[in-house]
């Protein structure tokens, strides 16, 4: 009869396999996590366009301009509070300022003119609000303007 206290077995769940599984899930979510680009405002609901061309991964020289449903140009620079510009004058001034900052940073004016201004407009916004941003970009010496849209899944 050896059923003494010394040989008593404690039933404990084996956590190793659970940990393996949880770490795998963690890895999945870390890799798939949508690390939002700083310039892209996620509150903006883009319209859909089946013919929108996929964004070239090498296309780095772009300036994203987010226009919300009320027609405000939303500026969210890192470390600063989000600003909303609502007048044509303010938008023009902001873009001209951006242009001169880029010229002093990049050195050549030609390089800045090659940059693409991508307008990310909310699908509920009015045309005049999108147009005034595009027109202001053109006035500020950014001749290349593109519209951003969601590509329907599977296209």
């Amino acid at each position, binding site marked *: 009869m050896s059923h003494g206290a010394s040989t008593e077995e*404690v039933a*404990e769940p*084996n*956590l*190793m396999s*659970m*940990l393996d599984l*949880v*770490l795998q*899930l*963690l890895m999945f*979510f*870390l890799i*798939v*996590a*949508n690390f939002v680009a700083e310039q892209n405002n*996620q509150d903006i609901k*883009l*319209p*859909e*366009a*089946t*013919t*929108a*061309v*996929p*964004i070239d991964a090498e296309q780095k020289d772009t300036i994203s301009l987010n226009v919300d449903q009320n027609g405000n140009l939303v500026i969210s620079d890192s470390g600063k509070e989000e600003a909303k510009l609502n007048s044509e004058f303010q938008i023009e001034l902001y873009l001209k300022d951006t242009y001169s900052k880029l010229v002093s940073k990049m050195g050549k004016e030609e390089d800045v003119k090659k940059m693409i201004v*991508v307008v990310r*407009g*909310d*699908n*509920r*916004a*009015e*045309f*005049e*609000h*999108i*147009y005034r941003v*595009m*027109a202001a970009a*053109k006035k500020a010496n950014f001749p290349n*303007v*593109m*519209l*951003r*849209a*969601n*590509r329907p*899944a599977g296209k």
Partner: protein
Amino acid sequence: MFGKRKKKAEKQVETDLNRVVTPMLDMTFQILFFLIMNFRLPTPEGQIDLFLPKEDEGSPQTQPIDQLDEKKEDEYRLRLIIYKGADENQGAIAAMTWKPKKTPLEPINPADPEKSAEGDDYLRRLDPLMYGLVVKLREFQPKDGGKQPTIKIECDRKMRYAELLRVMDVMRKMKFTNVGVMPIPKGG
């Protein structure tokens, strides 16, 4: 005797390891929960190229717009007219006119066998107004390698932005790439 002690030591190690793993598992669950809560399925974004006509074209004109258009070859204008009522259709396209000649585009049912041509599924799902545009565009469709006509879309300032993208989408589907947008000229 020796075997019994070894077995006991092994059991001790296993129990200790479980104790170490528990806080790690707790922490991992917290991170996992955070990531799951913040997870957003990435939507694929794409870009649409367009050009903006010169500034003076958006300003009031002294000559009738049709006379100006006829001088330019391979340049067409599509005017988008919107609903202005205060209902859910406000800002949606109500009618379209095609210039030169300022022809109103006739809405066409995509299922109409007389007017419809072989198209892909996307064109068949269009509403009659958009399909009317498709039928009109077929008259001017550039052939492979042929010269691209210029199409300027004149939009009402209060039009919904999504409506413009719908028209641009049809244009690109019909292989028109030289497309510009502008507001309806004042007095036009």
